[in-house]
C-alpha cells in the first residue's frame, strides 16, 4: 500500500488495505503513532480482547492460566523486529501458512462468522478482532520482550 504523500495517518490503515511483505511483515505502523506497551500488555491478557495467553505463555505477564498451544513469547522481541511482529499479530498466516493462530486484523474471508460469542450469525460489517491501535499497542509490548 502506498500512502499519498502528506496524507497524515488521520485514519488507521483499514484491514483490507494492509500490505504484507514476502515474509509476512507489515512495514508501516497501522496508526502512524507508536503503540503503548502497557495497554498492549492488557490486550494480551484480556479474554475479551487479544486473549493471547489462551495459547501463549508470557512469564512477565500477570495473567492466570496461560496456555501451551503456541510457543512461549518470552524473548520474542529478540527473534522478530517490529514490522514482522506487526504482521504476526495482524495475520500470522502470512508468516506461518495454515497456523492455528487467529488473524487479529482482518474482516473478510470467514466461514460462518458469528456475532461475537453468541453463536448467532454476524450482523452487518465485521470488525477486526483488534483495532489498529490495539495491534500497535500489542506490537509495542512484544518488542519489550527481550531475554536479558
Amino acid at each position: 500500500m502506498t500512502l499519498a504523500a502528506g496524507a497524515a495517518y488521520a485514519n488507521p490503515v483499514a484491514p483490507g488495505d494492509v500490505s504484507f511483505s514476502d515474509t509476512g511483515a507489515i512495514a508501516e505502523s497501522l496508526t502512524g503513532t507508536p503503540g503503548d506497551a502497557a495497554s498492549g500488555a492488557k490486550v494480551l491478557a484480556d479474554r475479551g480482547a487479544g486473549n493471547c495467553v489462551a495459547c501463549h505463555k508470557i512469564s512477565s505477564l500477570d495473567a492466570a492460566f496461560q496456555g501451551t498451544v503456541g510457543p512461549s513469547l518470552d524473548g520474542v522481541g529478540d527473534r522478530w523486529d517490529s514490522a514482522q511482529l506487526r504482521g504476526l499479530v495482524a495475520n500470522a498466516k502470512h508468516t506461518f501458512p495454515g497456523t492455528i493462530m487467529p488473524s487479529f486484523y482482518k474482516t473478510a474471508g470467514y466461514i460462518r462468522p458469528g456475532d461475537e460469542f453468541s453463536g448467532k450469525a454476524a450482523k452487518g460489517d465485521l470488525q477486526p478482532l483488534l483495532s489498529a491501535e490495539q495491534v500497535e499497542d500489542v506490537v509495542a509490548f512484544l518488542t519489550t520482550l527481550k531475554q536479558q
Partner: protein
Amino acid sequence: MLRTTTALAVGLIATATLGWADADENELVVNGEIEITTHAPAPAYVDGLTEIYSGWRFREPDTQLTQMDDFDNPAFLAVDAAQITWDTVEGEAGKSCASCHGDVMESMKGVRATYPKWNETAGEVRTLAMQINDCRTENLKAEPYDYTSGKMTAMEALISVPSRGMPVNVAVDGPVQSTWEQGKEMYYTRYGQLELSCANCHEDNYGNYIRADHLSQGQINGFPVYRLKNTKLNQVQDRFQGCIRDTRAETFSAGSPEFVALELYVASRGNGLGVEAPSVRN
C-alpha cells in the same frame, strides 16, 4: 437396580505437573466391575491420530473418581428419572417404552455403541435422540422432546447404561458414507472469526492447555456428559454448539442435518473406545 455399591479402594495418581500434560495412565473401572477402554489404536480412516483417548483421561483425578461409582455419579439422578419415564404410559397410543421394549437393561444392550446409524425404513441416518423422538411420536403418539432437553439427555443416558464398556462401533460406509464424508469435511473446516476447526483443537493440540482448559480429543463415547461446570447432563450436540460458538462462529442447530453428520463422523473417530455414558467431566 441400576446402582451397585462398591468399596472403591482406588488410588488415582495425580499427575499434577505444570504445563504440558498428555493423557494420563489411569484406568477406568466403574463400580469395581465394568472395565472401560479409554485408550485404543486410532481407526485407519483417522489420518491425524495414531492413538485415541477418551476425554476421561484428560480430567483431574477427583473428576475421574466421580465417574467410577454410580452412587457418586450425579448423572444417575437423571437415569433414575428416565427409568420411571420408560415404564410410564404416555401419549395417545396408551403405551410406554417398556410396552414394546421390556427391560431397558436387556433390550437396549449394545444400542448406544452403534449410534448414529442408518435406519432402513426411514432411509436416513439417525442419532439416538432422533430414534427416541421417532418412538415417541410414532409409537407412543406423544410429543417429541426438545432435542437437547433434560428429558432427552436423561433418556439417552438410561439407554446408554447397558452398553457401558462395550466398544463404540459406528458404521462409516455403506448407506451412511456420504453423511460421514460431510461430517469429516465439517471437522476440518475452520469456522468463525477465530478460524478454528475441531481438528485444530482436538487433533493437533490435545494434551495442550488452551487457557485453563486441558484439551482432550473431543471424543463422544461419554455422551451424554454430566458437567460439574453447569451441574447437568449435556447433550452431545449442545457440546458441539458450544465449541463452534467459541470460535466466534454462527453455530448449527441441534438436530440439523449438519450436526447429525458431524455426530456420526466424531462418533466414528472413537470406534474402539468403550461406551462411558453417562460420564462426568468438568
